[in-house]
């Protein structure tokens, strides 16, 4: 019997998804590396859930091609058992106990781990006799996490699965995810608004904005590209001239400007001479600046959605 030893890669080629007049995804071309944890970030309505739905064959794109492990997942009996898409709305049998739900899902998932499911049920204090319809928002989310992680699917997409979870439970989730990922490598796509909490987990980052890929990059490079420049206004303005300025905050005569682009030789010396402080920009701040609707000329990142490394 074969088991999963690595994850599945994902490719989207010119994918467009429309809902009537609304364009949820607009000509998206994107690659997700197999065996990585990729953060799928974006504001509400940016197309993250639609992207997950397409990968999981929940729907067909209006145009373009979706490939998971090299094949179109739509009604693909080889591929779909290996794709697990857990969304916050929950796709479970609401009026049947959790144990029945686990039995139903585990029977359909060749890589399902009953052992891990049991550990997670205990961790989140879920009673197998309870019905999902009777659970609190946080407990429902926890059960989604149980299904998503215990499936050990080669492509696992977790879309806002920690809504309503308290902080200890969220951190328990992150720890378990990392530990199980280390033992059973697979492709994980994490969508979350809690960027500050998940950014340390991420190897690659995809930022969607109004249905288009704004950034598709490995997380380390992206973080390194963000730079906060703080100091007297004239010195900061001079330093950032010609750079991709994401945002500027003023406090009296002091300015903090966030720029995108790696430091070049001599930057640190020039900053020191001008009395400026250079610092990293948290991924969350970078994300906020990149997706700021007030920002003009926001075409950044590799145009074809390939993850740059």
């Amino acid at each position, binding site marked *: *019997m*074969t*088991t*999963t*030893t*690595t*994850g*599945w*890669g994902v490719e989207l080629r010119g994918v467009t998804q429309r809902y009537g007049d609304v364009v949820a995804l607009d000509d998206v071309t994107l690659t997700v590396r*197999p*065996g990585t944890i990729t953060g799928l970030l974006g504001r509400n309505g940016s197309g993250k*859930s639609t992207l997950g*739905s397409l990968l*999981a*064959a*929940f*729907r*067909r794109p209006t145009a373009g091609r979706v490939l998971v*492990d*090299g094949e179109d997942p739509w*009604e*693909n*009996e*080889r591929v*779909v*058992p*290996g*794709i*697990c*898409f857990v*969304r916050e*709305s*929950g*796709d*479970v*049998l*609401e*009026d049947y106990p959790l144990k029945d739900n686990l039995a*139903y*899902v585990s*029977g*359909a*998932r*060749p*890589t399902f781990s009953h052992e891990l499911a049991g550990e997670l049920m205990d961790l989140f204090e879920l009673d197998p006799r309870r019905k999902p319809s009777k659970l609190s928002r946080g407990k429902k989310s926890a059960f989604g996490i149980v299904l998503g992680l215990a*499936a050990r*699917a*080669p492509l696992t997409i977790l879309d806002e699965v920690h809504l309503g979870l308290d902080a200890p439970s969220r951190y328990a989730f992150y720890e378990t995810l990392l530990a199980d990922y280390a033992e059973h490598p697979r492709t994980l796509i994490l969508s979350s608004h809690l960027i500050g909490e998940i950014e340390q987990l991420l190897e690659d980052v995809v930022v969607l904005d109004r249905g288009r890929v704004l950034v598709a990059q490995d997380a380390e490079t992206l973080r390194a590209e963000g730079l906060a420049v703080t100091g007297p206004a004239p010195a900061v303005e001079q330093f950032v001239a010609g750079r991709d300025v994401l945002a500027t905050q003023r406090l009296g005569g002091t300015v903090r400007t966030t720029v995108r682009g790696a430091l070049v030789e001599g930057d640190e010396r020039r900053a020191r001479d001008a009395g400026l402080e250079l610092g990293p920009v948290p991924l969350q701040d970078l994300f906020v600046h990149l997706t700021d609707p007030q920002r003009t000329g926001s075409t950044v990142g590799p145009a074809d959605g390939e993850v740059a490394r």
Partner: protein
Amino acid sequence: MTAAVAPPRVSPTAHTARRLAVALLQMAGWFWGIAIVAIVAGNVIGWAVAGATDVSIAIYARQAATWFPFSLAIMLVAAYLRVHVAAGMTRRSFVRAALVVEVGAGLAYAAVLTALVLAERAVHDALGWDSVITEVQVSDASSPVWALFLDQAVPFVLGNLSGLLVGVVYLRGGAWWGTLTLPLTVGPLAVSMYLGGARLMELPGIWTTASDTQVLLLGAGVGAVFCLVTALVFAGLARRAPVTARP
């Protein structure tokens, strides 16, 4: 990189069929439990009021045994298709499982109702009562068992398939389309159920001159065609159904 995934131990169709069958069996237990109590009560009341119950009370369960599973089939599509696909199975396997289970359920309901009618008839015979069938159908108290069974089986199976179709049309088209297309999705069931009524009312048609057996077989043939078309349309719609988020 390609990573192999072993196929599940049980085929997705068999896995889902078992799950759906368990769900329908639970509901059937409640349904027939209540039906038997109602049948016994009806007979007792008839005896208490008139001294004898000379009609079949059990056969009145025919309407309920058509429309209750019909409504369950609608809910089955609404509740299970989304969960089935989310669990990593294809719509194709859901369609196969749903069709197998619903056809089986229709036949099982027909068998149970036939058995109840026969059991009730045996009791009536023992008490010296008659067992006239007043329900609108072709077979009567003198018809052979196979005729009584066939008379129930066709609308029951068609009712279940119609329920699946109604469910998927509502799922895909929403409330407006689901409601507007009801004449198409439920119409064949109504025709099938009331074919016997056309004969009783002597409406012009082949049923006025044909024998009981001929009318029954004609009804079964028409019903089979309706079943086939209903199943094909259901399969076509379900296999292209997007899985939307639960509201």
